[in-house]
């Protein structure tokens, strides 16, 4: 990508410079200070008392379920196709709140993770069954990792509120360093906006917890996600699903069965940025009806299949947190790969289209067309949003990662596992 010349900073811990702290707006009383903060105000609207309906009801509520979403280069200006929103966190049950901008909307993960250096509001730390502090580690496919304590916050998104939600503070000072090699295997530490590409991650994929069943019993073979952290140091532990990092959408009192990602289309040459909407609930308001879309259920790890040239590729998925369309190989597609420095992207001589059939676990299928242009050319432009940036995804086995470009000009519903919608229970995608 266009950041190949970027120098990363590798610090085990990062204390916020005053400048960074000034970029966040501290709201409500108690935090004081930042008098004329530049952006936003919290709307802690308590949805007019008696909106007792569940998320699957289509009766609707008066709650504002629409959160504005931008697609841009991220807060460090070093990424592309980065969908971001503002997330408000509050000390549980209080009006002591803070809004953090430029948090990545990620349907490929679950859980709210925020750079600790940006969080000024004091949040209670979660503990395990032994009373020790709880640490969380997520490792990404690029071998980067995010490490930090689990804390509890009220998470507010538009007019929706997930009370007492376990979230992660990435790179919190005063907390033990990431265990190595159990969490830190020598990869990049995502404890800065430059390394993470965002100020945090709003993980709202098709599951309710980040780890799920794999973390409810101590594993001897997998890289652990949860750690018990007495003063003597952190060690792997198991955690009940309800104490794991949560998909905040599933904790809303209403509009809790999933969300709609709604982004406009973009011209062939791309755009500097783009505005769209993250709309909570499926079939609960006039703005999130399923209409005539098809429902594609996923397997128990959040994948479905894609068929290309008569060959089926399981392990495929939709993901707003992927900044391109990553699929198959040059050998399978006939699309030339880029030379250095844009290794990992496609560089066809001329823009090309690929017809692929997406197939849900339920057998629902439809053909979609995805576009791929020359990444060298795209990255040379000043734009940050492209519907035609792609690259190989060789696996093994090869698969389709339908990243952010797939969502441009297409309404995509994401339904959470076990939650009911007018089109049945999640987990599914619908478009």
């Amino acid at each position, binding site marked *: 990508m266009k950041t190949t010349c970027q120098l990363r900073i590798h610090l085990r811990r990062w204390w916020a410079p005053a400048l960074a702290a000034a970029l966040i707006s501290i709201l409500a009383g108690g935090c004081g200070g930042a008098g004329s903060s530049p952006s936003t105000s919290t709307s802690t609207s308590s949805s007019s008392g008696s909106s007792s309906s569940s998320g699957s009801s289509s009766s609707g509520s008066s709650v504002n379920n629409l959160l504005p979403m931008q697609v841009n280069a991220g807060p460090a200006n070093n990424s592309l196709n980065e969908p971001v929103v503002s997330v408000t966190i509050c000390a549980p049950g209080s009006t002591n709140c803070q809004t953090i901008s430029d948090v990545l909307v990620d349907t490929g993960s679950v859980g709210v993770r925020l750079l600790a250096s940006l969080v000024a509001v004091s949040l209670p730390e979660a503990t395990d069954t032994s009373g020790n502090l709880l640490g969380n580690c997520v490792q*990404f496919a690029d071998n980067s990792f995010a490490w930090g304590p689990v804390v509890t916050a009220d998470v507010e998104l538009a007019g929706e509120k997930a009370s007492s939600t376990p979230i992660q503070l990435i790179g919190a000072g005063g907390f033990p360093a990431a265990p190595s090699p159990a969490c830190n*295997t020598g990869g990049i530490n995502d404890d800065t906006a430059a390394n993470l590409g965002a100020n945090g991650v709003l993980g709202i994929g098709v599951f309710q917890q980040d780890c799920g069943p794999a973390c409810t019993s101590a594993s001897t073979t997998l890289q652990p996600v949860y750690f018990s952290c007495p003063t003597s140091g952190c060690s792997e532990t198991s955690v009940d699903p309800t104490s794991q990092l949560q998909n905040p959408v599933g904790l809303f009192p209403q509009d809790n069965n999933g969300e709609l990602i709604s982004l406009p289309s973009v011209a062939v040459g791309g755009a500097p940025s783009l505005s769209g909407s993250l709309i909570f609930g499926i079939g609960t308001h006039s703005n999130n009806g399923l209409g005539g879309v098809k429902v594609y259920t996923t397997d128990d790890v959040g994948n479905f299949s894609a068929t290309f040239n008569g060959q089926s590729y399981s392990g495929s998925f939709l993901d707003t947190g992927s900044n391109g369309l990553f699929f198959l190989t040059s050998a399978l597609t006939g699309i030339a790969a880029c030379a250095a420095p844009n290794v990992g992207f496609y560089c066809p001589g001329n823009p090309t289209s690929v017809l692929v059939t997406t197939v849900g676990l339920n057998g629902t299928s439809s053909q979609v067309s995805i576009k791929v242009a020359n990444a060298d050319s795209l990255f040379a432009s000043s734009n940050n949003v492209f519907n035609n940036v792609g690259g190989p995804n060789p696996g093994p086995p090869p698969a389709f990662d339908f990243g952010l470009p797939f969502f441009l000009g297409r309404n995509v519903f994401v339904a959470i596992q076990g939650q009911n919608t007018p089109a049945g229970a999640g987990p599914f995608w619908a478009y």
Partner: protein
Amino acid sequence: MKVPAAVLFSLLLSVPSWAVLGQPEQSVTSDQKRLRGELRSTTGQGYTVHEIDAPDGMIVKEYAAPGGMVFGVSWRGPTMPDLQNLLGSYFPEFRQSAANAGPHHRVLAVRTARLVVESSGHMRSFRGRAYVASLLPANITEEVIQ
């Protein structure tokens, strides 16, 4: 790609040997404690595959040349593997290249003069492979590393 198996060993080991890239297949690293599972070794045409199926769903395959040198590894599972262990002495090279690639998270391709690493996936579903082109046996391409 399926390779016709000339010899098939199926062994149940509590602590399998765990070889790393560019090391002899007999090498054992500290990671041997982590992956406990069924080890199945298949000698095909021109190379041997050591496949470890761990009970939690992690599958690691190591590809060894006739002389015993591991030229490639692949992985698939609900979490990332410990790449520092899998890549061995090639890890610093990978780390440096990955650092220069910018925030990717879901897909990463690293190509240096010696090393290729391809890694992809999302929470609960990861996959990838790594190989050293100069260690590939004669008449064997990277396509065998699946």
